[in-house]
């Protein structure tokens, strides 16, 4: 059973993990890579537990043929370190 359906625009791009992520109720993150999205994978898994979510997105936005993608990975936010 998929834990939730999440739109790609509600997921956050994580540069370190090179994945789109979304909070998992266990405390870790559901993760899916651009490569997976490109081949039509819609399940984002959590590395720490058995749960997974279904990602809602347009596959065309991630295929190379169509460069005018409208889903830009959200930019990494700057962080102020005191």
């Amino acid at each position, binding site marked *: *059973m998929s834990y939730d359906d999440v739109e790609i625009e509600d997921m956050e791009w994580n540069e370190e993990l090179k994945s789109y992520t979304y*909070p998992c*109720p*266990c*405390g870790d993150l559901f993760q899916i890579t651009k490569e997976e999205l490109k081949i039509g994978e819609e399940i984002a898994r959590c590395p720490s537990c058995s749960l997974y979510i279904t990602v809602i997105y347009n596959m065309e936005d991630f295929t190379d043929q169509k460069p005018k993608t409208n889903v830009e990975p959200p930019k990494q936010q700057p*962080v*102020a*370190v*005191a």
Partner: protein
Amino acid sequence: MEANERVKETEEKQEVWSWGAGTEGQLGTEKLQDEHIPQLLPLLPSISRLSCGGAHVIALTYGKKVLTWGRGASGQLGHGNMVNSLEPKSVQVLSNFNITHVSAGWNHSGFVSECGQVFTCGDGSFGQLGLGDYVSQSSPIKVSHFASRHVYQIACGMRHSLALLKGEHGDQVYGFGSGKRGQLGISKEKVKAVSLPQSVSGLQEVNVSSISANGDHSAALSSEGNLYTWGRGFGGAPDVCCPDRVISRFSFKQAALGWNHVLGLTDEGDVLMLGGSHHGVLNNPQKDVLVNQDLTEEQVKKIPGLNKIKVVGIASGSEHSVLITENGEVMTWGWGEHGQLGLGDTCDHTCPQLVNIAQNAEHQYITSSKVYCGSGFTFVVRACRPKQT
């Protein structure tokens, strides 16, 4: 004075227990591993309140000082860096303030001082720090928007925050951060995100005694015992953009939000649940039917299996629930994959189960217990007194 304190110390001892998901150091056990049974933590300063987030913990001491530990990758520990802490460390920036209320969200934190100032740190990507930008902070920053007004409480959810203000003009609740599921309650339509606090509509006539936030949910409890919720809909119901009173003939004295359910503790000591259609069946979808909501009657359902047990405290993780009975016993139910139920295994449960917390019954008895939940973990703080011989 000092002598008095020493006497008190020998009379009453505080114990802090934790269990569940622990790979970010959130259990305070100084280990990076899950624990399936309650672990007694090394001695901590006397704690008046805990707040547990996605994978970090904020402890408020009786001396009104703040300790944090667990995941720090977004700056949520307020230590001025972005690293995890395996052990409780004080938040230096707040050492000159007397802190009276704290809240831990998914990856951000909020602190309220005695004189009504509010500070935030951690992930700010959605504006949830209320600082007018979308920047993360590794040290607590004062939310200047409230200027000299008196903030009483803060509640941090997954990507949003609420603040409760008290003053001459009555109580006011503010929301900031992500509003995609209506969790800010600031307008009739969903708003993507706001980075400055905005007033929650529909609570103007209500005396708000407490606020809470978790996941994409928000809740407020009135002094008359009414429970209001807004944000993501429960049990497949549509999202709600303005505070909506939970229809029930009961009066509530405590509310605890999860990611898909809310618990309410009634004045009579009963626990009711709204939502939670897969509470305790995440690993066993076939059982789903058993706990499906009957929305035709009241929205809320009594928790099965409690019978006549009186409950004095409740807490909710993302997908698990904890309660304290009047006898000081701890019971848990819901999702158990990380041991967050503390029952020695990783099973799910739809009915509250008794947690066995070691006790030297011959020499001490419990005078008070409080329960707290992070996303996938649980804390119990209890005071014990030696038996007179």
